[in-house]
């Protein structure tokens, strides 16, 4: 009884965030802390990874690329999911903040995709002897990059904000269906070289495939990338909200 009312209150408080005013206040208060945490985790993870981890016996020092590659890949996928959720909320509940968050997430997600692709390509040269192979996972990422590019281009091409919000949201929805379908199709099409997922979280514990020496800094770096994503997301959403307000003021100016 009590617990349902608590969860309901939490739920209501969550939707309060959809109010631009509330969101601006909340995000303004948390942003400095978030920036601090991001720097802390990212720096410690990457510095630990780059300076204080041993070389792998097979891969040599290239194993250090993992501290960029895996977190970026992770955030690239999560970014797309976030974009999807933001769009869905907009289409159902017409909350501007959520669609503007989706808009702000796209360029960060695309950058993460680019980093995953770039570091992967650089890694591929020593490991597989080529920058690029048409491996399913690599291919899926290239397609993901195209989805991001299309989403951003559609936002850019449409003048009216609400129209753009509606259309990009529809694209994100349909896009997700086809992205999943593509993933399946690509697996069907080619088996490939890329390692399977070894970082799995089963009951909060890692599996044994990857040793602790590599795993701990990787975890820090993953959290760092996540926080960076969140920070940029908040900054971007705040800019979009302000830009909307600016447009309203300009429109009002025009009427006088």
């Amino acid at each position, binding site marked *: 009884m009590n617990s349902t009312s608590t969860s309901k209150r939490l739920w209501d408080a969550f939707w309060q965030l959809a109010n631009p005013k509330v969101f601006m206040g909340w995000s303004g208060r948390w942003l400095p802390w978030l920036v601090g945490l991001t720097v802390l985790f990212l720096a410690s993870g990457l510095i630990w990874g780059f300076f204080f981890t041993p070389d792998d016996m097979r891969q040599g020092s290239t194993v250090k690329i993992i501290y960029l590659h895996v977190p970026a890949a992770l955030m690239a996928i999560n970014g797309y999911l976030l974009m999807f959720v933001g769009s869905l909320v907009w289409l159902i509940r017409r909350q501007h903040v959520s669609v503007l968050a989706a808009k702000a997430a796209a360029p960060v997600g695309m950058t993460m995709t680019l980093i995953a692709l770039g570091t992967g390509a650089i890694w591929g040269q020593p490991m597989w002897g080529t920058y690029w192979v048409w491996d399913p996972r690599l291919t899926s990422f290239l*397609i993901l990059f*195209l*989805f991001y*590019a*299309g989403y951003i*281009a*559609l936002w850019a*091409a*449409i003048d009216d904000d609400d*129209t753009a919000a*509606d*259309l990009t949201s*529809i*694209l994100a*929805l*349909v*896009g997700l*269906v*086809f*992205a999943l*379908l*593509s993933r*399946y*199709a*690509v697996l*069907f*099409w080619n088996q490939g070289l890329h390692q399977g997922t070894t970082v799995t979280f089963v009951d909060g514990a890692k599996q044994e495939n990857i040793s602790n020496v590599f795993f701990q800094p990787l975890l820090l770096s993953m959290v760092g990338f996540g926080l960076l994503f969140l920070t940029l997301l908040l900054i971007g959403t705040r800019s979009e909200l302000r830009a909307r307000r600016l447009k309203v003021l300009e429109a009002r100016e025009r009427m006088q």
Partner: protein
Amino acid sequence: MIQLFTRDIGLAVRSGGGFGLALIFFLIVVVLIPFALGPDQSALALVAPGVLWLGALLACLLSLDRIFGLDYEDGSLDLLATSPLPLESVYIAKAAAHWLTTGLPLALAAPLLGILLNLSFESGKVLCFSLLLGTPALSLIGAFGASLTLGVKRGGLLLSLLVLPLYVPTLIFGAQAVHSASLGQTFDVPLVLILAISLGAAAILPFASGVALRVNLR
């Protein structure tokens, strides 16, 4: 809906953009491939299934922005939107007309053109079959993309950008089916998957496009 469908086909035929042109474009792509890749016969046979599928896809793509574009520019779409016909039906009629003037002739001509690229007749039949099942998906997805980019002038390339990643699964399964057939393997799984994509697209996209059209006309 039927009226819109027949009108669109009539318009396509009348303005010289009917059945013939998609075919001829397809033919030209097939003809250009040897120029681009060199004339080696066995190499050509190897790439033929993929090239023919790719050619069909591009022939579709080239005519996409006209699906709604012309009606939007001359104001007919506004009038259609205020008519008793729901926009979902408008989408279906237009996608169907596009398929009939583009996808269907391509599918029927593909086995013949396959001969130019040294494709065996058996594989040609599978190619025809896979195109028959797959081109509806191409038209449906393409018309969906067109409904999104309606208001964008010079939207042709934007449309391609939006639509091509959506075409990936269809292309993969399509090329795969013909490829397997040309190697003498079974090809029913990819064919079933293509059919599933076409049916899925027909089930979901009318609603998405209806919304997109309404938003664009606002």
